[in-house]
Every structure is written in C-alpha cells, then in structure tokens.
C-alpha cells in the first residue's frame, strides 16, 4: 500500500441522509474522494443494515452541481464572492436591519437538508444572542403535532418497543421509507408473534406485511382512535389499576367516547364496524404489550393534535405506557443546554406569529412559519425583514408555495445556507455553501435504546463551513461572540458531554454506541411524569387555560365537514419515497430511478369514472392553486376510492401550490396538507 492510499483508510461514522443515523463505513479512492458507503456491522440501532440512500451520499457529496462558493445576488444574477467578504457583509446587514427596525426584525429558519442533532439548539442560541424571539423551523409542519400531542398526555413522546410487542399499531407511518431501522424492529416483532395493524388510506410499503390494513378516510384517525377507546372501555378491557392510580380525567374520556360506537366510526371513517371491533379485541388480547407509533400521516390536518391525543390515550387504557412490549418513556442523555432559554428569556418581545400558538411556543419555543410568512407580507404584528435559513426549502415544503415565494422575495435580507441551488435558495440575497454530514461531527442520541454516538468528520472542503462555524463567525463579527466560545464543533461536543457520565474519548473515531442509561420500565411507579399533574393526562387543564378542549375531541376534516361538490377528491401529500428525504434528492441522477418524476396516484374506479388513462397529464386544482401532473393509476388495493396521493418536492409539479396555509390546527398551527379538497380536469 502506498503512503498516499494509507491516508485514505476507511472511516467509521454515521449516515445522515435521513435522521436515522445508521452506523456506516465510508471508503475513499486513492485520490481521497469518497467512493463507497457500506454498513457498519456493530451498532445496536441499525444492526449492520443500511438503506440505499446511504450509498447515494457518494453522489450528493461529489455532485458537480453542489454549491462550493458563496454567491451574492447582483441584479437578477449571481456573483461568486469570497467567504470572509460574505460573512462581513451579512453581519453588517443584520446589524443595520436590527438598529433600524429593532432586534425582532431578524429571524432564523432551520431546515433539514443539512440537519444535525445540535442544529436546532444552536439556531435557537443564535436567535437569543441576536435578541430575536423569531426562531422558525420546518418542525412547524412536521413532527411537532406528534411531539405535542403525545407530550400533552405523557409529558414525552414515548418510544414503541416493537420487538417485545404482541400488537403493533402504526398510524399513518411508513417506516421502510421514513424510518428504515424501525422496519427491522417491526418485522422482528411480527416474527416473534405480534400482530401488525397498519392504519393508512394507502397500501404503504409496511402495509404489505400488515395482518390488518385499516383504511380510514384521510384525517379521520381521531374518530377511529375514539372508537377503539370506546371498545376498550365498554368491554371493561382497560387497565383499571393504572387508570385509577396514574391518570387524571378518565371519566371525561369515558363520557366522550360513548358516541363512538363501531357503527358511528364506520360512518365517519369508512372503516367497517367489524374491523374496529377486531382491532380492539387484538389490543385486549395483547395485554400491556401494545406498541403504537404515529407517523407524519396523522399530522397536516386541523385536528392533528387532538387526534394524536386520542391515539395516545390508548396506551394508557391498555396499560402499555412505559412497559416492555409497549412504549418506553425514554430518559435523555442530560447533555448541557445550548438554547439559552434561561440566560436570555426574551419574554418582553412580541413574537412574529402574534402569540397565536402559545402551545407551540410553550413546548417548542418556536414560531409558526405560516403566520410568520403572512407577517412578512402584511407587516402585522410588525415587519419581519431579515432571515437566515439553514437548508430549508419551504417553496417546496410549506403550503401555498406561491405565497411562500412572494413572502421570501419581500425580505430585505435573505441568507440561505445550502448544498444545492434549490427553488428557495434562488430567492436569496446570499447563498453560502453548506457542509454535508461527511464534513462535520455530531453528537447523536438514540432515545429508544438510550444510547449515544458521535460522527466523525471524513473530509473538509476549503470555504465550505459546517454550521457551528458559520454561527460562530457571524457572532464574533457582531457583539455576542461570547455566546459562541468554542473553537470548533468538536470542542463544543466535548463541552456538551461535560454534564453527563459519558466520556468524550469513548465516542471519538468509532461507530460504536455507548448506552448512557440501562432501559427500565414502569418508572411512573416512583417518579411523577413531567405533565402539569405529574400523571397521565386524559384531560388537560393546561389546554383549558389556553382556551382549548379539555380532552382530545374529534373534529372531522374540512373536506368532510363542509364538502364542496366542485372539489370531489381528497388529496394526500407529503408521503415519503424510499429514495428521498422530504424534498431532498429529487432529480439527483440515480435517485430518479425509483420515482422518475411527479405523479398523482388514483384508484382505477376514479380513473374509469372520468375516462382518465394511466400516464395522462391532468390539471389538479384546489381552492388555493392548480398544477399539471401525470396520473398514475394504481391497483385497487393501493388507495381508497375518492382519495388521491402525490409526493411533494418536485419542482416540475409542486403539489404544495395546492395545499392550505389558511386552515391551521388551532392548537399548534399545523397546516392542511393532507385531506385537501381537489378536482381533476382533463387537459386534452
């Protein structure tokens, strides 16, 4: 072996092509270029397996279209500028904006395309140090509904223990596409005798192995959950000891559930009454070994938080909360806090979303993006003029794309850190090249196994910063460098671990995991939950105090509540493909193999009814907007009649042109991106 090639020996680190952090080995060729990615055999989370997105990182990292130099908008074109100059100019302009319009005129928007575990807290830290309460993120329309819904009931979002389960219930979740490592646990659970119930209007990938595939109409999951609760209570199948000793508000739930008879549930959801009875019986037979998981499919409706609460109640009724084979109330690592919540509380400042979503703010300390975009356009409650965005692509992912484009174009200063020239980056004043996951190090906790790992920087590209370095450099150019004292992210990682029992050195240069705490169950026996009452909250006095329903009431989605004959179909968006991560990787060479382009899936009966043929391009419209998109007629089992499905992220046919930023979940402000009332028109 030559001296040179020895320098490029394989590196064990972690994949971040999605947020599952599978342990991998990265190979480089003799010139040092990243050439192949293999699974690393010895990590408890991915257990020697990876998905094919991991290998695709080779193409992303080395792609000729990757942004490598800072760009400044000059007229309608771009000019390459030096990194130091770009940082100087950005810092100056942020300072000017703030002295002219107040500190809160600035905002930071965190995306997912270069995400890492410290990203959110670093961005929040930067905001607070900058003196603005306007932290925005992609979480406004992904993840928060589930996190908040479950946390309102349990003080946390518990992790399902599929492996030891007897009955696994997936609500609007498709792990093979969105969380591949969970697929392994689910199939293992099934091999060990558990029944798999998949609740999804589509035959999702995981539904292909379901013992029972339950197909509710989009957005009616809440009614189904209440129907199951009704069965458990009416048949005396609930865990009375647990309910009596560790919960509050059961009586209210018992009263509210009464109306959700199997027949009523069938009328609302389209799920046969017999199926409701059967699933409830399976849950009963499983005892406390019922493991539930809610995916992004329960979000994107105006009743998402309450639907999630209703689903969450089932764990408590089955007595499966923090039980083996049920769910785990996972303990955190206890690393140092980065977000400056206490040091710089900023209570006195009005947030740009006008305090419309206090629950979102209480749980997440972030503002709702739909409302913030309105504020940019209307100046109400005040004008938001500056934004730094870290690899988000809201033009493709937020609802009502045309409005998003208009709002972001109206900013005085719009800075985007990105890997590629996205539809959103095109609107920026400055674009800075961002580091990929192979060009930084990140500390990551696997809550479900209470373990921590740290990724290794495989390569560095001159002029391409990791995100910590970017915040650090801007902070030091302005007057709050003291809040970013760490020399680099590795020193930061070491600092983060100081409050834990984990030794930094044990995580360095390895793809191994260190378990920071052994798994224990039934912690509720001796430790109060972090809910206001310290118990499982069927009823929430906190929500009542904020003007919301005490229990997770069901409200039918708008397309059912007030149907409009001109929009006969209900459209689902936001489902995941196996080779994409949210809107990322669309159109990058080999990723096109799986789904070569945008398409809207349709049931054969619906196609027959309108004479539409497979592959035909149609006009798809909602009350918000319309696009042209080819139809894919799927098999009868793959979608329910009257429902259409299209994934987001395609610039040729951006489905979010159709979705609603004007109908929001009143609790956390999530927009309606599923169950969108649409019509289909033939073009020819």
């Amino acid at each position, binding site marked *: 072996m030559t001296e040179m090639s020895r320098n490029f020996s394989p590196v064990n680190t972690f994949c971040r092509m999605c947020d599952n952090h599978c342990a991998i080995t990265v190979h480089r060729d003799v010139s040092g270029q990243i050439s192949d990615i293999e699974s690393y055999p010895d990590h408890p989370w991915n257990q020697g*397996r990876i998905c094919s997105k991991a290998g695709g990182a080779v193409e992303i990292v080395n792609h000729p279209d990757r942004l490598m130099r800072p760009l400044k908008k000059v007229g309608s074109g771009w000019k390459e500028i030096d990194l130091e100059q770009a940082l100087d100019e950005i810092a100056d302009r942020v300072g000017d904006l703030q002295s002219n319009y107040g500190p809160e005129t600035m905002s930071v928007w965190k995306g997912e395309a270069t995400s890492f575990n410290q990203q959110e807290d670093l961005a929040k830290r930067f905001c607070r140090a900058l003196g603005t309460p306007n932290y925005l993120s992609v979480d406004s329309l992904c993840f928060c509904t589930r996190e908040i819904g479950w946390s309102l009931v349990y003080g946390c979002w518990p992790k399902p223990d599929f492996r030891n389960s007897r009955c696994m219930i997936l609500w609007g979740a498709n792990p093979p596409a969105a969380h591949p490592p969970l697929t392994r646990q689910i199939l293992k659970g099934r091999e060990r005798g558990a029944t798999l119930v998949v609740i999804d209007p589509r035959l999702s*990938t995981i539904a*292909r192995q379901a013992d029972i595939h339950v197909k509710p109409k989009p957005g009616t999951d809440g009614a189904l959950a209440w129907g199951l609760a009704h069965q458990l209570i009416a048949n005396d199948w609930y865990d009375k000891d647990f309910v009596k000793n560790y919960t509050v508000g059961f009586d209210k739930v018992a009263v509210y559930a009464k109306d959700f008879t199997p027949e009523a549930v069938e009328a609302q959801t389209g799920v046969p009454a017999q199926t409701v009875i059967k699933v409830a019986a399976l849950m009963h037979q499983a005892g406390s070994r019922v493991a539930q998981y809610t995916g992004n499919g329960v979000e994107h409706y105006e009743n998402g938080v309450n639907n999630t609460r209703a689903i969450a109640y089932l764990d408590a009724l089955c007595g499966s909360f923090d039980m083996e084979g049920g769910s785990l109330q996972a303990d955190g690592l206890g690393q140092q806090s980065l977000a400056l919540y206490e040091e710089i509380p900023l209570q006195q400042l009005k947030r740009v979303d006008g305090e419309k979503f206090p629950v979102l703010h209480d749980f997440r300390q972030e503002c709702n993006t739909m409302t913030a975009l309105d504020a940019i356009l209307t100046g109400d409650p005040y004008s938001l003029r500056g934004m730094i965005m870290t690899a988000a692509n809201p033009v493709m992912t937020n609802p009502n794309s045309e409005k998003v484009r208009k709002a972001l174009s109206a900013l005085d200063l719009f800075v985007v850190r990105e890997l590629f020239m996205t539809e959103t980056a095109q609107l920026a004043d400055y674009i800075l090249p961002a580091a990929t996951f192979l060009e930084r190090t990140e500390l990551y906790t696997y809550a479900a196994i209470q373990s921590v790992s740290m990724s290794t920087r495989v390569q560095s590209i001159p002029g391409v910063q990791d995100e910590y370095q970017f915040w650090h450099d801007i902070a030091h150019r302005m007057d709050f460098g003291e809040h970013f004292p760490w020399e680099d992210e590795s020193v930061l990682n070491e600092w983060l671990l100081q409050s834990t029992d984990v030794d930094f050195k044990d995580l360095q240069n390895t793809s191994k995991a260190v378990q920071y705490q052994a798994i224990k169950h039934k912690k509720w026996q001796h430790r109060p939950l972090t809910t206001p009452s310290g118990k499982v909250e069927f009823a929430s006095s906190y929500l009542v105090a904020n003007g919301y329903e005490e229990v997770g009431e069901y409200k039918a989605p708008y397309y059912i509540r007030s149907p409009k004959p001109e929009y006969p179909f209900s459209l689902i968006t936001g489902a995941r493909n196996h080779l994409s991560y949210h809107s990322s990787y669309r159109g990058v060479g*080999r990723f096109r193999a799986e789904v070569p382009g945008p398409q809207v899936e349709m049931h054969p009966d619906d196609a027959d009814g309108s004479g539409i043929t497979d592959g035909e391009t149609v006009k798809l419209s909602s009350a918000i907007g319309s696009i042209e998109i080819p139809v894919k007629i799927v098999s009868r089992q793959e979608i329910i009649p009257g429902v259409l499905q299209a994934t987001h992220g395609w610039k040729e046919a951006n489905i979010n042109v159709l979705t609603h930023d004007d109908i929001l979940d009143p609790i956390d402000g999530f927009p309606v991106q599923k169950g969108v009332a649409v019509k289909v028109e033939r073009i020819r």
Partner: protein
Amino acid sequence: MKIVTMDPRKCVACGHCENACAFHRTGDYDHRNSAISVNHYPDKSACIPMTCVHCRKAWCMEVCPAAAISRSADTDAVLIDANRCIGCKMCMLACPFGAINFDTEKLTCFKCDLCGGNPKCVQHCFPGALEFESEEAVPLANRNQHDNRLAVMFGRENND
C-alpha cells in the same frame, strides 16, 4: 455453504436491495441491472424476493455450452464469467427461479455472485427478509417462526 436466504413473510418490496445491487454492479439504481429482484403483488398482498440460491446441482452450469459458469472455490457461489459468456441465454431458460438476467448492453448474462462473500443486498435489507446464512439455517428459521406463533397462541412468553 452460505447463501442469501429469502423470507417473503418479512419482505416489504422496498427495493433497497435492488438499488444496492444495481449500484454495486454498474454504479446506478436501475433495477434492470440488479441480480436480485423483488416482485410486489398488491392484489394478493404478496412481496416475493428472488435471487440465485447457488444450487448444488446447478442446471445453468450444466446447460451452458460455453463453459462460462463455474463454482467459486472461495464462496461456493455459482459464477458467470462474462468474458466466456456468448449470450445464448440457455442458463436463463434453465433456471427454474428466473434468477439469471440479461445485460442488454454487454449482451451477456449476469447473476448473483454473493459480492465475494459479503452480499450488498443483505446489508441493505432492514426488514430482515434477506439473510446471508448457511443452508442449514433455513429450516431452523422457519421452525423458529412457527414455534413463536404457537407459543403466543398458548400465551407463554416468547424468548429468543
């Protein structure tokens, strides 16, 4: 010998094995370049993976007129030597599992070579439908699944 075993009870036809194999062989994600293929039959609720099982008495090897097919001394895998293959497709016809494919550019047949002993498809199978294991493990795995189901029916704990 070790082979890639396939369990349709765990396969979800996610296609990651096909992507990985195609990429390993040709540098793209075109499933036509994959030696493993997975079929999904939505109306029957069935997902069936299929790759070469490296038959002990391999009909493809016996039928090949060019003597292009041989058994690896290292892994016992049945291998096609692309340099000797004349593209006559007799092996494709002989294989009862449809596990041999035709490369329309090189005009030769190709099949699974077990990646020299660390099959990519198995690395990329999260569901665990594919395992790289010894021939003797196959009946044991089936027996284990069957036992687990009975054990659950009887209401006992099921251990590994």
